[in-house]
């Protein structure tokens, strides 16, 4: 890894911005306070940081999707000021976002040249575009039907189309935003092979990820962002996971939550050979009173599908769900909720809270029938309940009347969970409860879950964060390919063992090497 500097961002500052990308008038909120990143040709450079640290904002500034207000940005030697998108293209930077930038009903060729169509005179040069598309796809070593509409391709294929487009554009800088989130193990490895090849051809790759293991697998250097500031650029070979994490949060890895355990009671939730509506293999789990049960697995392993089948958000193809011994398999979701279930979905903004609605309403929504005689709701009771919850959960808000969108992510999550806490419930099904939540709020949520268990409730927690799931759970079910592959007691749980059980086709030896045990 050596070569000319492709990109040099120094001490970048960026204020909170409006729809046009310009700073909101009068704001002094900085999304980036002092962010730097240098990219050399022939390098894979990882960019890590917690959610909210500014990774995405920095990428957008580098890519030219946002202007910046302080610091300097040099690309291929020349300084960049205000930029429009087309000029950035000619600088040779290509970004592949997590949500792909593809038009689903347009063909592969049309997508590859969208916005920069080749022309002969005033007409589209379809022949040449097709030829170049075929060439780019071939370079990647895959075969994709060029005339297919993009929506028919797999996620991995769509990603490859995007990379092909970047290559066709003669990009020298490739930025990938969490590219492996939806890829299988095999597809991830194929991607990494590709990146290694591109690296050897002199491209520079920036690789944003949450998965520190990947940092060690593929990157040459890693830059860490914390609260909008760069806290270091390390040579991957010469550092450790601990050191990286420390720069991300300023805390050592072993300071993950220490939980107080409760003795579990009888079984309150059970699934018997449940196959959720979308298919999969039968899954059987139990959850006891006073327990926190973790549900681990890769993206796409079927955890959310199982959770939704348990609470009744989706029907089951076969199998039974039992709550407190009652067979609730045929019950509508509302009935199950009334009987004591609670469900906090994965997607907070779209499914966890209703953003324009006041906190007051968001918290009381599950209890309205019980807040007044008959069909009526007594406002004072509603407000009292909401205020009490806000206090109990330490939700940071000026009044309960402000809309949920004014809250930070962590506080929104507290509201999403809080609406279920007005009454003690039998079982709480939480899908990625701490995703996108900053560290202090995360701890508060852990305390909350612990309190629920101590009070006699039961928690089924889906999480992709291995340290979290290991430290919080009494037992862990690992899902793989739509079914439960194992049940692991807390004492036996290590990142290594859980990871092994999650992966579809690797040997234990491969896993040890990857995790660096």
């Amino acid at each position: 890894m050596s070569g000319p500097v492709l990109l040099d961002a120094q001490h970048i500052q960026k204020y909170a911005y409006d729809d046009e990308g310009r700073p909101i008038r009068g704001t002094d909120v900085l999304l980036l306070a002092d962010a730097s990143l240098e990219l050399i040709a022939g390098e894979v450079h990882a960019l890590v940081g917690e959610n909210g640290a500014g990774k995405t904002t920095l990428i957008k500034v580098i890519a030219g999707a946002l202007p910046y207000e302080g610091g300097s940005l040099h690309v291929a030697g020349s300084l960049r000021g205000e930029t429009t998108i087309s000029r950035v293209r000619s600088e040779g930077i290509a970004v592949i976002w997590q949500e792909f930038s593809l038009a689903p009903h347009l063909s592969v060729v049309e997508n590859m040249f969208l916005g920069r169509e080749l022309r002969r005179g005033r007409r589209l040069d379809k022949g040449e575009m097709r030829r170049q598309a075929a060439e780019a796809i071939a370079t990647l070593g895959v075969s994709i039907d060029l005339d297919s509409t993009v929506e028919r391709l797999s996620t991995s294929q769509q990603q490859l189309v995007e990379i092909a487009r970047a290559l066709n554009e003669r990009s020298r800088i490739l930025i990938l935003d969490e590219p492996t989130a939806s890829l299988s193990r095999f597809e991830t490895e194929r991607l990494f092979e590709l990146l290694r090849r591109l690296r050897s051809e002199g491209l520079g790759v920036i690789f944003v990820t949450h998965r520190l293991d990947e940092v060690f697998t593929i990157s040459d250097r890693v830059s860490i962002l914390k609260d909008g500031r760069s806290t270091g650029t390390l040579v991957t070979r010469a550092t450790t996971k601990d050191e990286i994490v420390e720069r991300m949060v300023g805390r050592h890895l072993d300071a993950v939550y220490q939980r107080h355990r409760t003795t579990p009671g009888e079984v309150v939730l059970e699934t018997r050979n449940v196959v959720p509506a979308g298919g999969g293999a039968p899954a059987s789990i139990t959850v006891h009173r006073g327990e926190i049960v973790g549900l681990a697995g890769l993206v796409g392993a079927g955890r959310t599908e199982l959770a939704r089948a348990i609470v009744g958000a989706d029907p089951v193809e076969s199998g039974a769900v039992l709550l407190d011994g009652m067979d609730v398999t045929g019950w509508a979701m509302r009935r199950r909720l009334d009987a004591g279930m609670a469900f906090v979905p994965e997607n907070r903004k779209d499914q966890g809270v209703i953003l324009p609605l006041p906190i007051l309403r968001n918290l009381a929504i599950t209890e309205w029938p019980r807040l007044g005689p008959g069909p009526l709701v007594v406002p004072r009771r509603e407000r009292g309940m909401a205020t009490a919850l806000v206090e109990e959960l330490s939700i940071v808000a000026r009044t309960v009347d402000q809309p949920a969108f004014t809250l930070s992510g962590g506080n929104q999550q507290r509201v999403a969970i809080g609406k279920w806490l007005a009454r003690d419930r039998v079982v709480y099904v939480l899908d990625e409860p701490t995703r996108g939540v900053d560290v202090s709020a995360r701890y508060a949520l852990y305390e909350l879950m612990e309190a629920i268990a101590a009070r006699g409730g039961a928690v089924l927690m889906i999480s992709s964060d291995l340290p979290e799931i290991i430290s919080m759970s009494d037992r862990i079910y690992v899902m793989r390919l739509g079914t439960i592959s194992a049940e692991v007691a807390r004492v036996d749980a290590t990142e290594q063992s859980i990871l092994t059980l999650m992966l579809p086709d690797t040997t234990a030896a491969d896993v040890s090497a990857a995790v660096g045990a």
Partner: protein
Amino acid sequence: MTRLPTDRPLVRATAAAVAIVVAVLLVGQFVPYFATTTNLSKVLLEAAILSVAAFGMTLVLLTGGIDLSVGGVMSLVGVVEVSLVSSGVPWPAAVVVGLGIGLLLGTVNAVIVSRLKLPPFIATFGTLGIAAGLALYIANVIGHPVFPPDFVSLGNDAVLGIPITVMLAVAILIVLEVVTRVTTWGVHLRATGDNFAVARLSGVPVARVLGSAYVISGLLAATAGTMLAARLGTANPLQGEPYTLLAVAACVIGGVDLFGGRGHLWAAGAGAVFLFAIRNIMNLQGVQPFMQDLVIGLLIIAAVLVTVQGPALRDMASDALQRSRHRNAA
């Protein structure tokens, strides 16, 4: 074969075309007079008018929007043209003015949708009201003038057996098809409706593309309004009103996706012919006007139902097919 690709517009459009031919032949057996050249010619002549409006609607639908003002524009343009003609302006000049009005209203829509970022449903709902209202007002002022005969003949006569309106509609279709297939604008139209954010990030000038669809729709609505006025020989301020719904219906039946990104112009034209054929049959059978509206309304609901529930229906159909195949094999 396990899946019927009923969601591909091409298949559905072909099905519509085939259905028309079959219908014509079949119906001709049961409804006297239907399959005669005079009658079919009349159907095509009138369908041509709708199809021109439907072409505009298709372009707008492709961008993921909708143009509810079509009917109002058609009425207004007719009324304006007739009032100019009755005050001595030669009809070609009046037509030019009429088309200009279509362009103007289309531009108003374009600005509201692309600059003010109002949802198209709302924006064009408003322009519809304004256009329809103006049409009523002007008509009230001018009384009941009529168009000169040479203008009227354009809307009613045929050359070499083909109605002039049909020739015009086909010509417009050819031009539009060529332009949308051969230029970047055509790709950009579909991209904008398919995924607005992606189109914008890719450098597609989305505001301009969006706006252009409405401007052209306004122009085409004005053209259709002119053709309608010529056909009827006069300008009643309400004559364009049913065309908004009919244009949407023609597009939906022709497989144009209401949510954007998919659809073919010629299919909308086929949908228009289908609609007018149905209407013609109902007329020949003496079905009352309000019943005809009812049938059209139900047709639209049915067409949208197929779009929305299409995948579910398709799965049901292929499940049934599989089951019957297993039964036969067993």
